[in-house]
């Protein structure tokens, strides 16, 4: 079945994109499945002019941002509290095998606003081009470059403060 092939081809990338945003494995697993269910039901509406990969990524990023927003609204949490909670998950998770430096990097990334974090993750970890990111996020290349630049600056500042550079 063609859809099974599609799942096998993209599930890892979708999962890791989501995992880096929501940190928790169960949430990431649940959201990844939800993304593919949505894709299945909306395949008819898929427009050929957008690449399938771009479209899947767009659905995944929207799900991520919606999930984080809902989480804040449900618990009336300010942005800082969600970061704190995600940071604690990194620290306490037995699934995280990174050393102290990697933990600090992840904590610094978590300090970024959601959309900037998404841009940073896509560029730094996924190695996507600005053009691909522009198609996925519906933002101009210039704005994405500026966003990535600011994200790197913030992370560098944070790590410098902690004497990790």
């Amino acid at each position, binding site marked *: 079945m063609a859809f099974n092939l599609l*799942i096998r081809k993209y*599930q890892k990338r979708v999962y890791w994109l989501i995992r880096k945003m929501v940190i928790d494995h169960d949430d990431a*697993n649940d959201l990844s499945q939800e993304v593919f269910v949505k894709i*299945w039901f909306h395949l008819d509406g898929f427009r050929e002019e957008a690449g399938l990969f771009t479209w899947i990524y767009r659905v995944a990023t929207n799900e991520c941002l919606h999930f984080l927003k809902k989480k804040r609204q449900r618990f009336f949490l300010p942005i800082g509290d969600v970061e704190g909670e995600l940071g604690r998950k990194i620290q306490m998770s037995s*699934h995280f*095998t990174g050393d102290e430096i*990697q933990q600090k990097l992840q904590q610094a990334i978590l300090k970024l606003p959601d959309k900037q974090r998404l841009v940073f993750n896509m560029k730094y970890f996924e190695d996507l081009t600005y053009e691909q990111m522009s198609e996925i996020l519906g933002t101009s290349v210039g704005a994405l470059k500026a966003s990535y630049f600011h994200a790197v600056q913030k992370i560098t500042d944070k790590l410098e403060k902690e004497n990790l550079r």
Partner: protein
Amino acid sequence: MKAPKLPPKSEPDFSLPEGYFEQFSDHLNNRIEILEKWKNQTRLNPEALWPVNSGLWLKMEEGIRSRIQQSPSPVWKFNFPSWVLASVSCVLLVIGFWYYYPIRNQDLGDWNQIIAQSSESECAAYLEEDDDWVKGGAVAIPDGVLESVLPEALPLEDGLMEDLELEDLSY
């Protein structure tokens, strides 16, 4: 007048702190190690940071399949032709208007014109009928009932008058 003699040029100091090259080498190695770890091991390979069970991907695939089977297909929402919904709404509006229009028309009738067209006897008969209807609707109260319900002297009034002084009533 002779120009003053310049002091002799001091020799540039090229001396380095002790163990400088060893420290430099250690520092460089440390930076390279960090960069290697970040770039090669974890940057493009998240599983190095967050290891997952090997069976995760198969389980996820099964999960997606079962969710698709369980969830009611939302296709009808999108495939139901919108022109059918629009037509049904229009028909309901027309029926509603057609049903209620006569009543509205009756309510808003021109009474002056109706009275002008009616004869005096018709008007008188109508008024008499209307008067009977009003009288018929009123409840007749038998004699003595009100007196039995209400006390002869109202204690409240007496009490009120006792408490009030003449000064209270004047301004």
